[in-house]
């Protein structure tokens, strides 16, 4: 539902059905709503079978990359080794705030999904890594885990199944990069959150060097519904002509929009209807100018492009962008795109872990140049320099933070070049800014 707004008739609330309902937070309340039935059933089912159901359901990762969840699980074999499950609750992609509401309103739903997934990948221990700023979601999750232990849902004999399932909540301390899966593992191990070189992939050597599966909050919260209702049930959600994007998805909507909030729709929903009907369109007297549909790391769309887009993995790609994490950022006609893109690059410069040269230098230099243009000090050759740096920092680093910084610059230059040029044309001064290029921004 469009929390904090009432549910819209065109939504498909599965995960968000109980947002805003404080009773659903408690163990008794969750059980009264059918909670933990899927887990009880799953703990007495062979993990292989669970992997197959999730694979058949077509569920894909909801954190951003969209990797098929069942396939990820199938990398985990009964090899007798210690396995770990990590739940990625480090939600920090600008524009995204869906996992926050899942944890605030349905913490037991996530505990259930995490415990179920742990069993499905032959793991005894799972960690939920929550970003440090999420104090309320952290408290809710800690309470739900404590309640689940007290009720025997977790522990050495989980729900009387004879299976041992431990779930621990781990709090981060402020670092966007820890949402990158291998950085998260380093952080959980008590290290700086630097991403690791892959291979080895987490399924081979992940947390504490052991085979590890890492899934996003929304993905794991979805799993109990699939186990309970079956893969065929889940497949009813999505466009009939696109079997690659199945299910419902939470979209967080923010920026210059009438009704910001979280909306859950079946994949394949028309983006125009979503923006104008569900979210109420632009603020009174304003027009939408641009939309970033999947969190700040995906290419910007013009209004026309956004209005023609279809909300699923392939639909957004066909429009030249990506579904990403489902964080929709709306810009209206008051916004200066140069200023806002500069603000985004500053975000990446601040969050670069600085281990790869292209990222450490690239994010900082792009920010300097973007801010110079923003402040009316840019020159025509700056635009070529921006393109050169963007190309030089894409596809060359350990993780994709570097690419994510280049993305809004490249798409912004392509689609709103006139705004850059207008600022540069207005610059009548000879540009000498001593020291402006020296300091590293990160």
């Amino acid at each position, binding site marked *: 539902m469009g929390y904090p707004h009432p549910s819209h008739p065109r939504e498909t609330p599965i995960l968000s059905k109980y947002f805003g309902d404080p009773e659903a937070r408690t163990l008794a309340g969750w059980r009264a709503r059918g909670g933990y039935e899927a887990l009880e059933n799953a703990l007495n089912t062979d993990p292989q079978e669970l992997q197959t159901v999730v694979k058949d359901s077509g569920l894909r990762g909801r954190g951003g990359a969209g990797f098929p969840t069942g396939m990820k699980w199938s990398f985990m074999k009964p090899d007798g080794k210690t396995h770990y499950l990590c739940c990625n609750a480090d939600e920090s992609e600008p524009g995204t705030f869906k996992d926050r509401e899942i944890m605030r309103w349905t913490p037991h739903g996530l505990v259930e999904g995490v415990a179920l997934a742990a069993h499905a990948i032959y793991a005894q221990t799972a960690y939920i890594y929550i970003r440090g700023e999420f104090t309320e979601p952290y408290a809710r999750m800690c309470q739900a885990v404590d309640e689940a232990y007290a009720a025997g849902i977790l522990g050495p004999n989980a729900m009387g199944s004879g299976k041992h399932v431990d779930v621990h909540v781990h709090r981060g301390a402020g*670092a966007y990069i820890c949402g990158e899966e291998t950085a998260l593992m380093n952080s959980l191990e008590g290290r700086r959150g630097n991403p690791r070189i892959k291979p080895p992939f987490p399924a081979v050597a992940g947390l504490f060097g052991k085979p590890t599966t890492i899934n996003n909050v929304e993905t794991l919260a979805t799993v109990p519904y699939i186990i309970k209702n079956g893969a065929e049930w889940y497949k009813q959600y999505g466009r009939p002509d696109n079997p690659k994007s199945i299910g419902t998805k939470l979209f967080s909507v923010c920026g210059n929009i009438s009704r910001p909030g979280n909306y859950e729709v079946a994949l394949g929903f028309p983006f125009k209807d979503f923006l104008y009907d569900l979210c109420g369109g632009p603020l009174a007297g304003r027009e939408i100018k641009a939309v970033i549909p999947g969190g700040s790391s995906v290419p910007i769309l013009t209004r026309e492009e956004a209005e023609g887009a279809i909300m699923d993995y392939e639909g957004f790609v066909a429009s030249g962008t990506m579904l990403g994490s489902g964080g929709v950022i709306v810009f209206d006609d008051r916004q200066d795109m140069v200023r806002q893109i500069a603000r985004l690059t500053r975000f990446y410069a601040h969050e670069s872990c600085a281990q790869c040269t292209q990222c450490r230098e690239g994010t900082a230099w792009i920010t300097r140049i973007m801010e110079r243009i923003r402040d009316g000090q840019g020159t025509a050759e700056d635009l070529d320099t921006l393109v050169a740096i963007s190309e030089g920092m894409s596809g060359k680093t350990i993780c994709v933070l570097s690419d994510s910084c280049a993305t809004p610059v490249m798409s912004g230059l392509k689609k709103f070049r006139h705004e850059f040029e207008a600022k540069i044309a207005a610059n009548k001064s000879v540009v000498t800014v001593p020291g402006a290029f020296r300091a590293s921004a990160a």
Partner: protein
Amino acid sequence: MSHGPSASGGALVAAPPHGTHHDKPHVPVFVGDTRVELDRILSRYPTKQAALLPALWMLQDARGWVSEGGIEEVAAALGITPAYVKGVVSFYTMYHQHPVGRHFIQVCTTTPCNVCGAEDVVKSLLEHTGCGDLGFTSADGRFTVVEVECLGACGFATPIMINNDFVESVTPESVSRILSELK
């Protein structure tokens, strides 16, 4: 990755002076119930080092910031070196490497909040707290205001965090009322 460049200006945020807080001896944190709690946390992980972030949180909750003496105590408790702990502390933005105001205020100014007027909220906060500039503490020691990158509450622009509490949908006008409710 400590508090980086500010969004409102081009300059780096000045950190308060270091080296002035090292005179007071560190009073151990991991004693009594807190030691029991640390042991309980340690039992969740196969390595002691994995309890580093939780241990640093416990230290900061008890003392308000992460001092040199605190770093040494955490390092000893977990069997790692103080230099290593310091490297970890400095990576994350939420550990205070110097004392901060009684009310530590983080304002989100990243793009989604920025397009909703977050920079005006920053101005209002700086004015009403008397902090003067980002990263500085007010003369009465009550407030420190910093910018923060995306608090993950973009639909409730502008969110601010006051110590551990979230306040959503803050406007320049609501700042004085919010501050007046703090001690």
